[in-house]
């Protein structure tokens, strides 16, 4: 395996990118095209090259939208419980505290990580990745690429709490002493997860390596 020594800059056989070789590559299927590239990939039909600046603007726009709707998601109730005519509302954080009081530490941790830790880390990570495209970054490209992969992988898992609310509301209905209804936060939280997923999907991971590629050529 030569993988490790290939990683270093200054290897005897430097990696060339399709762009440096004067070719246009499809980010979906890897097919390369000669200049002038067709509007759509010859193999998979994907529209080629929206332009790096446009994609970065989209990343930031979705990110800001995701952060804005995350605020009401934390302030307003996620769950409204009626027990014997007595109504109580709980936000995401109060839901976690309730679980702790019942002694369900493992589940409390799952909900806390999925609903609070992951979204916050995701905002920070996408923001960092998007902003480090334009300037010298403290993290080298391989580390930033790892960060991008992690963000892509974990982001969807934040949806857990929305499903929990949906399941609880379906289960605990009128014919029981208790009813559970979703609160407005369920909607804004679901939107926040969707917007940040769209933000991460709009990010072009090529941009992480572009600076090194530009220096090499």
């Amino acid at each position, binding site marked *: 395996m*030569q993988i490790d020594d290939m990683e270093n800059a200054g290897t005897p056989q430097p990696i060339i990118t399709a762009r440096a070789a004067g070719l246009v590559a499809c980010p979906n299927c*890897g097919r390369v095209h000669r200049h002038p590239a067709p509007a759509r990939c010859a*193999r998979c039909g994907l529209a080629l090259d929206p332009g790096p600046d446009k994609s970065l603007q989209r990343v930031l726009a979705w990110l800001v939208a995701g952060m804005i709707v995350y605020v009401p998601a934390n302030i307003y109730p996620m769950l409204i419980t009626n027990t014997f005519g007595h109504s109580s509302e709980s936000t995401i954080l109060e839901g976690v505290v309730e679980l702790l009081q019942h002694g369900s530490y493992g589940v409390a941790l799952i909900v806390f990580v999925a609903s609070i830790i992951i979204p916050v880390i995701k905002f920070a990570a996408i923001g960092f990745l998007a902003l480090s495209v334009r300037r010298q970054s403290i993290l080298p490209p391989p580390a930033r690429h790892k960060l991008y992969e992690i963000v892509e992988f974990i982001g969807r898992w934040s949806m857990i709490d929305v*499903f929990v609310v949906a399941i609880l509301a379906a289960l605990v209905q009128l014919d029981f002493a208790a009813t559970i209804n979703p609160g407005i936060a369920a909607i804004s939280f679901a939107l926040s997860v969707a917007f940040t997923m769209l933000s991460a999907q709009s990010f072009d991971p090529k941009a992480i390596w572009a600076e090194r590629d530009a220096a090499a050529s």
Partner: protein
Amino acid sequence: MTETDPMLPTEQGKPDPNDSAIEDLVACPTCDALYRLPNIPIGSRARCLRCHTVLTAPREGAMTRIAMLAGTSAILMIAAVFFPFLELTAAGMVQRSSVLDVVLVFADGPFVGLAVAVAALIVVLPLARFLSLIYVLAPMGLGWRPAPYAIAVFRMAERIRPWSMAEIFIVGVAVALIKVAGLASLSLGPAFWAFVALVLITAVKDNFMCRLTIWKTLEHRSQ
């Protein structure tokens, strides 16, 4: 699994853009690094040398297997929608809930949008993905020409992938179980296990999937 290194194009000289063998070149979909992929033996895997994205991992009979696994998942999903997945007993009453109930409970009221989104994420999109994969890969596995619009359908199946959240729903069920544990006694219905099975099958199926092989096969057979 054996790893096979992809060849850098520099090993055969700088690639000539006018080279007729441009179809043999593959750019890493993630970082744009250019490779000339020799015939990667079946059962081995080639990764990008710098970002480690899997470039290709061909498997014996993969397309037939994926189509069959997708078919199994689709049947399980249909069963999972209609059979009860949780049974709740409180104060002598029994409430059975199917996935359909979860969705319908919001159907009238301000939460219609949420109902549509939940239905899409846990049932509609996973099912759409299974059916698209059957549509695209079954003719490929049989050695036929691609079905009409197979390329567009496969591209859509790939786009749907992150939005198909059946496995996250299962964790949600587990959390919900514990949350109402004090309120009532709960037991898992057959649909829950159908969901678990289809999530496991989907994981196995995705492991068989080599996108590059599928795209290349679609391209060649379309001509």
